[in-house]
Structures are given as C-alpha cells and as structure tokens.
C-alpha cells in the first residue's frame, strides 16, 4: 500500500497515524504541497483531484481521508472500537465524521490559512475583524465538540478511542501549529487530548505532528513559483 502524504495536511496526519497505530505496512510517498508538487504532472497521474491524502492499494486508488480510514479498518480487520459495527455506535461515529467537514475542519483550516498564507498571498496582515470572525467560528466548533460530541465520555463515541478522535485531533492541531492555544481554559478538551495522545503513543503523536508544529517555518519554505500558481485560488478565498 502506498500513501501519498504531506503531514502539513490534517487528513494526511489522520491517515498516517491510523496506519501506524494499526501497524499496516505502507510506503510513505511524500507530496510537498509547499512546492506545488500536487499540481505537477506526475502527481496528476496518481490523482486528478490533486489533493492529499491518496491511498494506492495495488491498482485501487482512493482519495478522501475518511474513506481511506474506513477502508483501512475494514480491510485490515482492525479492532472493532476503531470503527464500531454496532448500529448506534456506528451512527455516532459517522455523525461526527460527517459534521466535522464543514465545522471543525473548515474553521480550523481557515485559521491556519489566515495566519500562514494570508500575508504571503495578499501582501498585508490579516484584518482584525476577519481573524476575530474566524476565531469565533473555531470556538463554536470546539464548544460543539466538547458539549455535543464528547460530553462526559473519555472519547467521542465512548470508552474507547476511534477514528473520530484521530480525525478530530488532527484538525485541532492545525490552528495549534500556528500558535493558537485552544487548550487553555478547556479542561475537558485538554483531558481528552491527553487520553488520545496516550492511546496513540507519545512518540508517534509527536512524529505525526512534527511538521505542523513547525508551521511558522512555512513562509520561508514555500516555493516562489508554487506561490504564484496558488495565488489566484487563495486570493479569491481570502477576499
């Protein structure tokens, strides 16, 4: 199995972590987003969607991290708690994985993009109201994660860790990597983070998040040509 990844990307981190935790043998194929590698011809042959992560299992090519995660669990017959088969628990994990696209993922990503890419793409600092509005959206998502999805359970679907926790943690680390402290003043979230880290393994958690925790280096490493290529898309997004 080949996994095409850039650990700057949240969905890539989730896929990487689960594959490692489940001890699924894979070949790590690095796709450097900062140099625009995903826009090149070679990557285009792997996936026309030009996004990461991509999984290539023999001839079968699959995009979209949540699809890849479910595939890995199903194929490798992972312990049930990762993606429970019981009707109600399955509904709950699916509910989280569906909700998160346009909530925690969208809002966490926005913070990352505003902090890391806005100044590069727009040539000025992020206007205060824009940043404040984005932070408000992120806060709302974190409140919903805590109060609706976690409540007083150790993990999102109950006593055991699942794919939902891996996905949620990967998304939260994105704004965290830019210096936003989402954990102070949030004991429930902090305790959950500690449990997830312990389950996954401190070393592996650190390895998966090494790149994002150095997010501030991004602006130095971004390739100028790639920057120009990506400008129209981002300028539209930011305006």
């Amino acid at each position, binding site marked *: 199995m080949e996994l095409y990844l850039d650990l700057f990307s949240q969905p890539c981190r989730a896929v990487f972590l689960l594959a490692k935790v489940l001890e699924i043998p894979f070949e790590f194929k690095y796709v450097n987003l900062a140099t625009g590698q995903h826009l090149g011809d070679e990557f285009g042959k792997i996936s026309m*969607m030009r996004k990461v992560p991509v999984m290539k299992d023999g001839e*079968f090519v699959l*995009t979209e991290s949540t699809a890849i995660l479910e*595939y890995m669990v199903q194929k490798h017959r992972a312990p049930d708690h990762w993606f429970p088969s019981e009707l109600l628990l399955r*509904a709950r994990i699916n509910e989280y994985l*569906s*909700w998160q696209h346009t909530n925690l993922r969208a809002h966490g990503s926005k913070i990352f993009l505003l902090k890391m890419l806005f100044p590069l793409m727009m040539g000025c600092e992020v206007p205060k109201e824009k940043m404040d509005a984005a932070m408000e959206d992120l806060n709302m998502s974190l409140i919903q994660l805590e109060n609706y999805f976690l409540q007083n359970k150790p993990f999102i679907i109950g006593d055991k860790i699942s794919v939902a926790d891996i996905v949620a943690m990967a998304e939260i680390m994105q704004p965290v990597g830019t210096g936003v402290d989402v954990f102070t003043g949030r004991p429930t979230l902090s305790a959950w983070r500690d449990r997830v880290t312990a389950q996954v393994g401190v070393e592996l958690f650190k390895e998966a998040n090494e790149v994002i925790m150095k997010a501030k280096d991004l602006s130095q490493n971004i390739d100028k040509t790639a920057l120009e290529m990506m400008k129209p898309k981002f300028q*539209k997004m930011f305006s």
Partner: protein
Amino acid sequence: MSLELFLDMLSQPCRSVFLFAKKNNLPVEVKLISLMNGEQHTEEFGKVNPLRKVPALKDGDFCMGESIPMMEYMAEKFNTPDHWFPKDLQKRARVNEYLSWQHLGIRMHGSKMFWMKLMAPVVFKLEVPEDKMAGAMEDLNSSLDLLEKTFIQDGGFIGGEQISIADLVAIVEVMQPFASGVDVFEGRAKLSAWKERVVQAVGKELFVEAHKTILSAKDSVKQLDSGKIEYFRPRVLKLIS
C-alpha cells in the same frame, strides 16, 4: 413507535433522506420543520437535535443529525438492498469517497446559489456584487465538471452500475442551484443523462414530490418577511461581502 424524520424540504440533505426512506418504503414518520419560520429554535426540536439542524432523526430515545449517517443507519437497521450502501470493500470506498468530497466539493457551492440568487436579493433586498456572483458561479461550474468527469461512471451512477446513496446526495445538491435559477444541465449532456437515470431509479413521482418545495422557491420566497428571519441576515452578509 415509528422512526421520526424531521425535515425541511428546502434543504438538500433533507431531500436525500426523504428520497431514501420513501423509495425503500421504510416505516418512518416525516415531521416537517420550517427553517424559515424558525422552528429549528424551539425547545422541542432542541431535544431532538441540540445543534438545531435538519435533517434530524428520532428512533425511540436515540436521536441524531447529519443526513449521510442517518441514511446509513436506516440502511443497516432496515436491511435495505445492498447497492444503496454496498458492503464490498472497494464499492463502499467509492461511495464513501464521493460522500466525503461533496461536503466542501459541491454542497457548499450549490448552497450559495440559493442564498445569492434568491434569499439575498428577494428577501433581504441585498445586492450581490458582480464579482462575488461570478466567483461563486466559477466554483459551482468547477464542482459540476468534477462531478461529471470524475465521479459519474459512464452510463451509470457514482458508485458504479447501480444507484447508491451517493447519487441521492449528489442529485439534491445539483437541484438546489437549479431551483434557484441556474441552469446546471445546459451544455452538460452527461450530467443530464445521469439525472434522468437517477429520476428513473427513484421513481418520477417520488422525485417530483421531494422537489416540489424547492422548485417553487423562486415564488415562495417572495412571501417571506425578512423581519421574521433576521437571524439569517449575518450569514447572507458574510456570503456577499
């Protein structure tokens, strides 16, 4: 007590859930919730879905939101035909791939049209800047191109030869901008042919029933009093500014 579905037929995910439940003759009770009348803010609805979104499902004491998980729940519980959400590893992955992509890949862009073409100008009397509209149309067109060229299998459906929940989820999203006045099918023979296959697979009568509310939205929104739906204004402003 049967399973209750809380739906507003103006909402795309509500329509996919409705189509799935009715096509499979599932023992469900549909309860209509009017978003425009603020019914998602009642205490009663809050008990069903604290996130105050539709669609929502109540099966005895079990409540949930999110249309795709709801359909998967019903598929599993009522043992619907396999093609709706195949158990085969690779077939399931293909369906999941579309269902994941579509949240940001097409849903977002199609939804915008309803707000930018109908709600903003007609209800809130707000003018949408030309560049915003052009940008939104560009995004929608890119999405429709990807749907046509990458996801819809030649002569078939998204997951393959048979219809699945991926097609239901896709069709309702495509119908949203269509009902808002954007002719998404013009110049798109493959998309149009796929639409006809979906309509046929689901049944024309059921498809029409599911879409009658959204297809009359162009007229019905004229009756809306923006004073009663002021809580939508910030969202509209955010979209157009």
